[in-house]
């Protein structure tokens, strides 16, 4: 099997397994209160991590490039309560223009 197909199949199985472990083995049992308060904060921590890694990461180095301008535009748009599609498409447009200019 080629490396490409091995990657496709292994990641399909692994992704399903990661999603299923909690719901299958924890069942409908309640988490202890400390765990519940951690869970309520997980989305904020993970989403913020994804934002900075996808904005500044390039392999293992941190870079400041046109993406940062695009994401800054998205932040402004969201701050002024513009719709998600405007923020996201605007981020791409600003990044594209910045790349074309510099």
């Amino acid at each position, binding site marked *: 099997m080629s490396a490409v197909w091995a990657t496709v199949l292994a990641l399909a199985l692994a992704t399903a397994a990661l999603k299923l472990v909690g719901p299958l083995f924890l069942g409908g049992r309640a988490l202890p209160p400390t765990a519940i308060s951690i869970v309520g904060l997980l989305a904020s921590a993970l*989403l913020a*991590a994804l934002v900075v890694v996808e904005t500044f990461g390039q392999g293992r*180095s941190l870079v400041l490039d046109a993406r940062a301008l695009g994401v800054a535009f998205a932040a402004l748009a969201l701050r002024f309560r513009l719709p998600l599609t405007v923020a996201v498409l605007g981020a791409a447009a600003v990044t594209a223009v910045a790349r074309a200019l510099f």
Partner: protein
Amino acid sequence: MPDRAESAEVRLRAGIRRGLPFGLAVFLIALSYGVLARPVMGTVAPIVMSVIVFSGSAQLGSLAILAAGGGAGAAIIAGVLLNARYLAMGLALAPSLRGRAVARAAFAMTIVDASWAAASAGDGTFDPWYMVGVTVPQYPGWVLGTVIGVFAGKALGHPSSLGLDALFPAFFLALLFEEVRGRRKRVAAAGGAGIALALTPLAPAGLPILAAAAAAILASRMRP
């Protein structure tokens, strides 16, 4: 998010409405994935991957390694690390799921970042039907975007010249904006971002994002 006392159908429909703009955003991200994947993976494998993996971070992350000449082992490890957050998300969701194992598994398979975050009530519980609804527009958006990206890639040009690589962080930022309410969530977000930035030069892809979960543990120690 509708009241939990509403019927499953009402909550599902509300989720679908909520998920429509997400569907457009992931369509565009998948478009750039398809364009980038074709020269490395051919035409069939990227589409099959979108159908059976359905995860932007793992697909784009493993593609980056294959494109750089890395082997399957490295690509798989990167993809697993990038998706390791699903383990945390599944554990968080589990107590909100009722019914038999098959039903719980079916709900769990619809976990994606946007839906999981949208269905979080903020008190540690989730609305599973709402989560399914938010995923419904995203799945065809993801698969269709990949198909068009693979076949129309040459006409579109290079995704980075269109700024498509900024779509992914901007999309997550939009989710973050809706999620962060209150001091503890702001601390968790700032801490998560700091941990991820600090670890990016030191750890393999994916691990910095998983490690950011530690910020949630620290923030949970604060008074609300």
